[in-house]
């Protein structure tokens, strides 16, 4: 055996050892590695409520619905109490369906437009969002909300897949769900403009149910426990302000309506911060006692609000002069 073959032997042994060590290192690195990435932790959504404005509701009647909105806001202390100059305000009307405004399945353009105008006048940047059941653009255009929002100085934010992330929701049924996280993270303030509608499964669709439109994912599964899910939504969203649009009431065939015969004039706007009180008021407008509505009882039990308006810190009724 000459020296050159010894060197050759050592080189080969070294290469083999290096190869083995490399393989072992790679195995160690990838061993038992979870190749399917886990779900990232769910995001949290902060409260949008302004301290000192809790437990209030003002009901304003009047056939001029924009004036009724102004009157209700006036009694609450003016929009300035809720919105500061420079705020980024996200508004969630009910724009769930591809319907013309007079059919009452979507928030009225007059009411939504007025809220946008008030916020813009207070110096805020306003974006309006909903994740509807039908084609989003079609819903905003045909409901008249696109036009109303834009002419009032706001912007419609059409939902797209990139806006959604998993967020924490509530304690009863859905701890986490896909939601419009990016708009919610963008916003400093959040205003809901629900409509007053009958609902096939849960009785009435009002403020709390309106937050459905912030969710994505397999929403159609939520109906299997609808009262618990709506109560979870009331834990998920603590809005700055709610303007319940009772300018017209969808009394039958809800929540889609579809015929003028399903709509009654309401001429009432309820603005406030207690979602249970607002929804109890709305339920009465549709001829339901709040106790009949499953999710209102659950929400009241969790201390999310009160059914009886007399228990509110501030409760007023006003007539808007038209």
């Amino acid at each position, binding site marked *: 055996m000459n020296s050159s073959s010894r060197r050759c032997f050592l080189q080969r042994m070294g290469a083999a050892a290096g190869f083995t060590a490399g393989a072992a290192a790679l195995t160690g690195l990838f061993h038992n590695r979870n190749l399917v990435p886990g779900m990232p932790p769910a995001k949290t959504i902060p409260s949008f409520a302004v301290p000192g404005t809790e437990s209030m509701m003002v009901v304003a009647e009047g056939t001029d619905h924009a004036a009724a909105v102004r009157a209700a806001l006036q009694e609450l202390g003016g929009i300035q109490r809720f919105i500061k100059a420079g705020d980024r305000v996200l508004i969630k009307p009910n724009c769930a369906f*591809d319907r013309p405004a007079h059919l009452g399945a979507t928030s009225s353009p007059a009411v939504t437009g007025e809220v946008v105008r008030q916020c813009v006048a207070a110096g805020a940047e306003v974006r309006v969002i909903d994740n509807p059941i039908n084609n989003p653009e079609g819903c905003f255009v045909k409901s008249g909300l696109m036009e109303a929002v834009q002419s009032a100085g706001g912007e419609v934010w059409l939902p797209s897949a990139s806006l959604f992330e998993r967020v924490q929701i509530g304690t009863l049924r859905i701890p986490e769900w896909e939601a419009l996280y990016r708009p919610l993270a963008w916003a400093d303030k959040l205003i809901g403009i629900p409509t007053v509608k009958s609902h096939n499964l849960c009785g009435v669709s009002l403020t709390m149910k309106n937050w459905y439109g912030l969710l994505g994912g397999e929403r159609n599964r939520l109906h299997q426990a609808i009262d618990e899910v709506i109560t979870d939504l009331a834990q998920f969203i603590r809005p700055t302000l709610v303007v319940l649009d009772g300018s017209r009431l969808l009394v039958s*065939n809800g929540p889609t309506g579809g015929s003028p015969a399903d709509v009654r004039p309401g001429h009432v706007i309820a603005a406030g911060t207690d979602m249970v009180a607002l929804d109890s008021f709305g339920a009465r407008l549709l001829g339901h006692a709040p106790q009949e509505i499953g999710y209102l009882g659950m929400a009241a039990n969790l201390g999310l609000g009160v059914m009886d308006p007399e228990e509110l810190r501030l409760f007023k009724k006003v007539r808007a002069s038209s």
Partner: protein
Amino acid sequence: MRTLRRFYQAFFLALFIAAFVLTAQGLLKGYPVTVFLDSSALNGLGTLLSAQNIAYTMWIGFLILALTAFCGRFFCGWICPLGTLFHIASFLLRPKKTTDRIKQNLYSRAQVAKTLLLIVLLMAAGFGFMQVGLFDPIALLTRTAAALVSPGMRAGWLLIFIFAVLLLLNAWRPRFWCRYICPQGALLGLIAHLMPGGIVRDEEKCTDCGLCNRDCPGACSPSTRTRMAECFVCGNCMQDCPENALSWQWMPPREKLDLQSGLTRRGFFGAIAGGAAAVAALRTQPAAGYPARIRPPGALDEPHFLDRCLKCGQCMKVCPTGVLRPALSEAGISGLWTPVMDMEQGYCEYNCTLCGQVCPTGAIERLTIAEKTEQPVKTGTAFVDRSRCLPWSFGRNCLVCEEVCPVSPKAIYKETVEVEIDGKTVEIHRPRVDPERCIGCGLCQHECPVNDLAAIRVTSAGESRSPDGSFFLQ
């Protein structure tokens, strides 16, 4: 002349793309987005034969046909967007050597195939087997473009594959489609024989170098006698001739041009017989209907629909929910690529009639929203699959289908029953369908939480377009 022609080709391609992009909700504001489909006289002639009807917008095609009698196949050389794309592909895929390019562009007797296809298609259309749109260049391009961009065209991969093959065939013969297959080109070629002029070779000056064939897209043989049925009147040959031996002449002696389409008597009668025989495919249609053959709202009853549908895919492009996709087997052989609703992809939007607005031939009627919703137009009927439905089969509440049902009063109603589950009495709401009110929009199916095979599904039964559509005793 090359520069000018390229400018025109680019312009019309851009115009085609613009019309295509505008075929969308929110952009379609009365623009004549069907203008290219209308410009192909083949489409008008086909529907004339099959449906004894031409959409009035198709006058453009006949204008082009008339102009062809004076100017030849300028449509192929200067306008057709499909031709332009194939022209670009041919340019990119062309061989390096001049001799190879000349060889590729020599006239081939097989170019008569397109004329035979034209006869077969028109013959079959006359017998009610309307497949003109399958081979119309504009319908082909529109359909493929729709498959490429539309969310509702997941079934369209085959269309894209076919188009890719057609693109690659340009490497073997430049503008392969235009020379060998295109029946619209064949039709224009036949008319081009009427031309009072043509490209004529001066035999004194010609040195038989063959350079005129180098960039001849139509392979019309300018090096001997120009075949007017194949000539795209692009003028490349005149520009490429080093001896200036080729020139445009008005009223040349007839023997200076080749006015043969290459069609033999045997071929002609063969094609006639073939076209008549192709009608046998109609017999593959079932007596009743295919359950998945759910047509868009406003579609004429099936025989009349098939008489007019060009399978151009405009309806699929414009549909805001993407519910429309090209049929493969859902509508029989004669219904290949025709639009069907696929509720896995979308649903028919209640307040929408866009598909009828962009249909070039009226296969889908131009309805108003009121006409659609008040009659109402029924595209089918929803059936609850009780073995998969949550309330029916599993004793769980759901009722999403009822919630989203867009008609008033709702076509889905609930039946409330008390069910004992684990010793507890539970109230369960079960969905039921009222077939009189159901319009077959498929929103219930689209929204059903049972996500592989929905527990409520629409089939074409009960569609209002067909006179015997209803399955109830009236």
